[in-house]
């Protein structure tokens, strides 16, 4: 490159415009409820990882002297103990790690599969589209819990199976959303311009269509995370999810209901964490929806 050319590019680099993503970020950070959701989520995540360092207790250690005691500062049992004398504070943190991991990883897998599948179906169109979307319809018709229960009974209880089963179902909705958006994006002049270059389909889909259709998916997926956490909680509640000594919020809640009368904190504390996480994700999802589609302001 010539020195002048170099100078041109460098001069240009100093004058950045505001991308649609950046503009959306600006609108998002101006949304108080959404930012409160982010803070809450950060706090819960921090709790999940920091709590074990603060507490002297191990999540599997039984304190036989103090079985099912209410929250107290004595012996640092801040959230009390369960029926086996295990410290609830570290168990809630351990449950948070599992529940958040299941929620986030499963959602990520669903989004990747759903976006690619939907974009390919929509862009290919015609018979390919028909076949791909009929497969989605068929899978959609399978009852989620039924499918998961069959999987779990056939393959045994396994946390990865829970990831897989939930992810295998949740991507269907995303594929439908993305396919619809892709049909619209395919008609735009910028996609036609790219096609007129003879650009390979992979380039058109990944560079032109996907970045322009993921907005609704991002919103949907923030609402999907709490759904997945709830599904996991429900499975654990039924005894099909996470297994002892591992724990999750769902499992803690399930165990807490057993001693609702004698030790309500065993239910209330993990349930409060779960509810707070639901709120946080829903506020973030609402904020993202408003930020990514400013026309929809009401």
């Amino acid at each position, binding site marked *: *490159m010539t020195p002048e*050319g*170099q100078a*041109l*590019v460098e*001069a*240009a*680099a100093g*004058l*950045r*415009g*505001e*991308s*649609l*993503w950046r503009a959306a970020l600006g609108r998002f950070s101006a949304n108080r409820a959404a930012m409160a959701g982010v803070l809450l989520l950060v706090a819960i995540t921090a709790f999940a990882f920091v709590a074990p360092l603060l507490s002297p207790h191990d999540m599997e250690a039984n304190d036989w002297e103090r079985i099912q005691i209410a929250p107290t500062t004595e012996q640092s049992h801040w959230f009390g103990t369960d029926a086996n004398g295990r410290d609830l504070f570290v168990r809630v943190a351990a449950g948070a790690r599992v529940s958040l991991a299941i929620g986030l990883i499963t959602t990520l897998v669903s989004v990747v599969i759903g976006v690619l599948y939907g974009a390919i179906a929509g862009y290919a169109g015609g018979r390919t589209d028909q076949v791909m979307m009929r497969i989605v319809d068929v899978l959609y018709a399978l009852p989620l819990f039924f499918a998961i229960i069959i999987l779990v009974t056939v393959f045994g209880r396994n946390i990865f199976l829970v990831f897989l089963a939930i992810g295998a179902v949740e991507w269907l909705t995303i594929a439908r959303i993305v396919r619809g958006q892709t049909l619209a994006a395919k008609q*735009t*002049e*910028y996609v*036609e*311009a*790219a*096609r*007129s*270059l*003879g*650009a390979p389909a992979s*380039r058109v889909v990944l*560079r*032109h269509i996907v*970045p*322009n259709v993921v907005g609704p998916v991002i919103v949907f997926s923030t609402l999907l995370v709490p759904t997945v956490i709830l599904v996991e909680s429900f499975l654990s509640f039924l005894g099909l999810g996470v297994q002892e000594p591992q724990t999750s919020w769902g499992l803690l809640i399930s165990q807490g209901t057993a001693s609702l009368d004698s030790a309500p904190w065993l239910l209330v504390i993990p349930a409060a964490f779960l509810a707070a996480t639901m709120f946080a994700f829903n506020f973030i999802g609402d904020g993202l929806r408003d930020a990514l589609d400013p026309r929809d302001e009401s």
Partner: protein
Amino acid sequence: MTEPLLDVRSLTVHFPVRGRGGAVLRAVDDVSFSVGAGETLGVVGESGCGKSTLARALLGLVPVTAGSIRFAGRDYARADERSLQPLRRAVRMVFQDPLASLNPRFTVRQCVREPLDVFEPGLAARERDRQAVAMLERVGLGTAFAERYPHELSGGQNQRVSIARALVAGPRLVICDEAVSALDVSIQAQILNLLADIQRDTGIALLFISHDLSVVRHVSRHLLVLYLGRTMERGVARSVFAHPRHPYTRSLIDAVPVPDPAIERARAAAPALVGELPSPLAPPSGCVFRTRCPRASQLCGITPPPLVPAGDGAFACHHPLEDVDR
């Protein structure tokens, strides 16, 4: 006589219409024309006359039903995706809607660079950036615009970006599909002057598609008049404008506003073109223009008029306007 750069013979594009029992939409029907290197051909006609389909067929974006598209000595009408690449590199397009034709997630530099990304993947990324930015300078947008986004630019600026994108890989023919229709009149003039400048400097040919005759007249050397996908008249722009032979061309010329109230009032008394464009799915029998033609006779409903050569051009009409030239 040397072969023209682009030579289109009997180009026909039919779209099958679903659910109509084998009905076809004759978007472009038996259209022939040629464009010499460095020349400008204006293509005019109302909305829905097949202008855009014609442009898309030239770029291989819609399948060609019949006819040939010879470019620089090679026929591309039935070429597959891979063998279309030389044509796609040499023929670029500027689209109608300045904003919609640019990816909203791309910076201006990325938009302009894209043809190089596709055609010159071997070139270093920095070199592609440099060429894209240099082309932005060429179309009158400084480097200041390179990292901006299309939604931050005006329509005229975006159309300059579009032109830079069309030019960056060194085409020999640029198709302007209603490229100035969405712009203010003053901006239209700037863009037209820019195109004329670039044509003078680089010797590219232009295929200028528009419904606006005053724009086409400004830029074109040759003219092609389409109606419902058929050729009505073609010829040297100046003589067609001065002495149109086809009644449709006459009415299009008459529809151009003239800055003279007396003439405008006289015209208002006798509207140039009456009625709606017939459905292209059920075009009139015989001459497709006869339903709106002031000179239509019984014959026009029976036999489609053949394209009759006249001077440098040709027209398709049973009852042409008199030839004043000869």
